[in-house]
């Protein structure tokens, strides 16, 4: 998992949303929220389909008028402005290339509309095409491009406008894994090179973690948690976030009198806090095959049920004796012994590496 880059933000909110919401009839697509986007930030709106992330993006871009609330961009109230009047540009999920224009005409179209002088327009277009590695493809028609190339044209066409905020709607989701990774690297490079504020929508937690300086996790029209990838991964605020961002083992239990009791746990652990139902969230990489010489806060006996090889690490499903399955991953180093399927062994983890969620 890539560590979120420390953001080059200046701490100045370039987009300021207040009480923003959107309803379609009785259906609330996005509940009222205040949200600021800092200048220079790379913000991911992460959530499952139907969570309202695209609705929010389209409101920022001016494609949807909010039901309530206001949006300010660079200090100007743009709530009632359409996309043509906002200095935002959106890269669509389907790219939306102009099929009757060449790559160059596609990229230059916005500049032409802005009546940029010819020389300047050509320079900017050339620079942008080479930035996205499309030199030599200027005169191709969109239907003669691969998915990755089409994606780059769409990106270049938006970037050439030097938008105050660049918006991207699941724009990598149509690419295969290899290409998606490449494009993620490139997006990061471009963001570092050009600066600017980027907001992108994704349902892919890996993509959000690898690109974003801040992630806003969304569910049912709400932003349920915001923070860096590390914050969210290590301190999920809810079972939903824990399950959606990264893999997690979740064990239900109850805290009473400073003691945790969980039917699935073979041990009792102390925990401070009020008496309530709790969920223990344990990331698979936190759990180890117990080293007999070490003490663990949580330790239990299990049987290896399956073992999957991922190159850099192994992933195991370990059955606890009463049927509960725990996922754990083991980073490989040559010295490690790797347990086999069917082997019985102890697993363990420490309390400071897991997260205890109080009942929701």
């Amino acid at each position: 998992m890539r560590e979120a880059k420390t953001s080059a933000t200046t701490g100045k909110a370039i987009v300021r949303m207040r009480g923003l919401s959107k309803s379609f009839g009785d259906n609330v697509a996005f509940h009222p929220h205040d949200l600021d986007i800092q200048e220079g930030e790379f913000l991911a709106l992460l959530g499952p389909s139907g969570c309202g992330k695209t609705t929010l993006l389209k409101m920022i871009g001016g494609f949807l008028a909010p039901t309530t609330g206001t949006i300010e961009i660079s200090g100007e109230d743009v709530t009632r402005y359409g996309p043509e009047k906002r200095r935002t540009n959106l890269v669509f999920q389907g790219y939306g290339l102009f099929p009757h224009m060449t790559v160059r005409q596609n990229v230059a179209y916005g500049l032409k509309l802005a009546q940029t002088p010819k020389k300047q327009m050509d320079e900017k277009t050339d620079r942008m095409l080479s930035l996205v590695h499309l030199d030599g493809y200027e005169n191709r028609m969109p239907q003669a491009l691969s998915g990755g190339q089409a994606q780059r044209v769409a990106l270049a066409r938006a970037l050439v406008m030097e938008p105050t905020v660049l918006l991207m709607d699941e724009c990598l989701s149509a690419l295969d894994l290899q290409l998606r990774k490449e494009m993620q690297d490139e997006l990061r490079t471009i963001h570092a090179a050009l600066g600017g504020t980027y907001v992108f929508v994704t349902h892919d937690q890996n993509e959000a973690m690898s690109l974003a300086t801040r992630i806003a996790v969304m569910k049912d029209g709400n932003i349920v948690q915001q923070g860096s990838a590390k914050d969210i991964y290590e301190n999920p605020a809810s079972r939903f976030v824990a399950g959606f961002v990264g893999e997690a083992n979740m064990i239900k239990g109850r805290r009473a009198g400073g003691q945790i009791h969980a039917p699935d746990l073979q041990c009792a652990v102390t925990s401070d806090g009020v008496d309530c139902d709790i969920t223990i969230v344990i990331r698979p990489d936190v759990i180890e095959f117990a080293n007999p010489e070490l003490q663990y806060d949580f330790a239990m006996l299990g049987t290896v049920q399956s073992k999957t090889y991922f190159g850099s690490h192994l992933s195991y499903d370990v059955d606890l004796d009463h049927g509960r399955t725990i996922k754990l991953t083991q980073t490989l180093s040559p010295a490690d012994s790797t347990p086999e399927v069917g082997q019985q062994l102890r697993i363990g983890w420490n309390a400071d590496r897991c997260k205890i969620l109080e009942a929701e």
Partner: protein
Amino acid sequence: MQDQKTKILLAPAALVFTGLFVVPLSYFFVISFWRIRLYKLVQDFSFSNYVSVFQEYMHAAVFTFFISLTIAIVTTFLAFAIAYLVRFKAGRFGPFILYIAMVTMFGGYLVKIYAWKTILGTNGILNSAMLWVGMIDEPLSWLLYSPVAVVLTLLHFLLPLALLPLVGALNSITDDPILVARDLGATGYRTLVDIILPQCQPGIVSAFALSFFISAGDYVTPRLVGGPDTFMVGNFIESQFVNRLNAPLGAALAFSTLTICLIALALFRILLSRSLAPK
């Protein structure tokens, strides 16, 4: 094996095409170089029919050309406006509008002609209404039996036909490029000219060609509502075949008209694609 099968499967279509299109057209093309002597067809190879077309019917050809061009342009323009409404503005009423337009086709061609006679006639609805309102003191006689009546009648007949290729063309345009254009700062007009129109060129050409060719070949409308001064080429072709029994001259007239129409269509296509080409 596969080739054999494909050929067999294509045979009926090829047969129909040959029997109904290729053979008759070739036949009339050949006899357009023949002559009539004593009411009988005589084999020949002479351009005399084409010479008489040029000498005697040029005025009709020019008139037909301009009236058909007017009808085709107006029809295509209006059909595009309706198709645009159906595709972009009418929302869920779009299919309903289209349905209504299609239903009028069931009315038939002659019914529409008679409908316009009752609307435009001296005692027709339009004149009566204008008299009643006091816009005019006596009925306008030039409404019916004039080129205007021909244009209106054919426009009414052709509009649903021209609508179909345009709705098809507009429906095949996806929303994303249109939204992108707006996002890049395009006004509604620029989006129409730069993004929408270039993508529905084939539909525009089809709509134009349909209305242009049908108008240019029509002879019933001009006869019934066109009046004594509105003789179109179709009327002359018909009379060569039916009254004068001079099929060679009729054929020559038909092929001359067809050639002019095809040239006009080619020019229209070129002009359209030039003016809509992205710069």
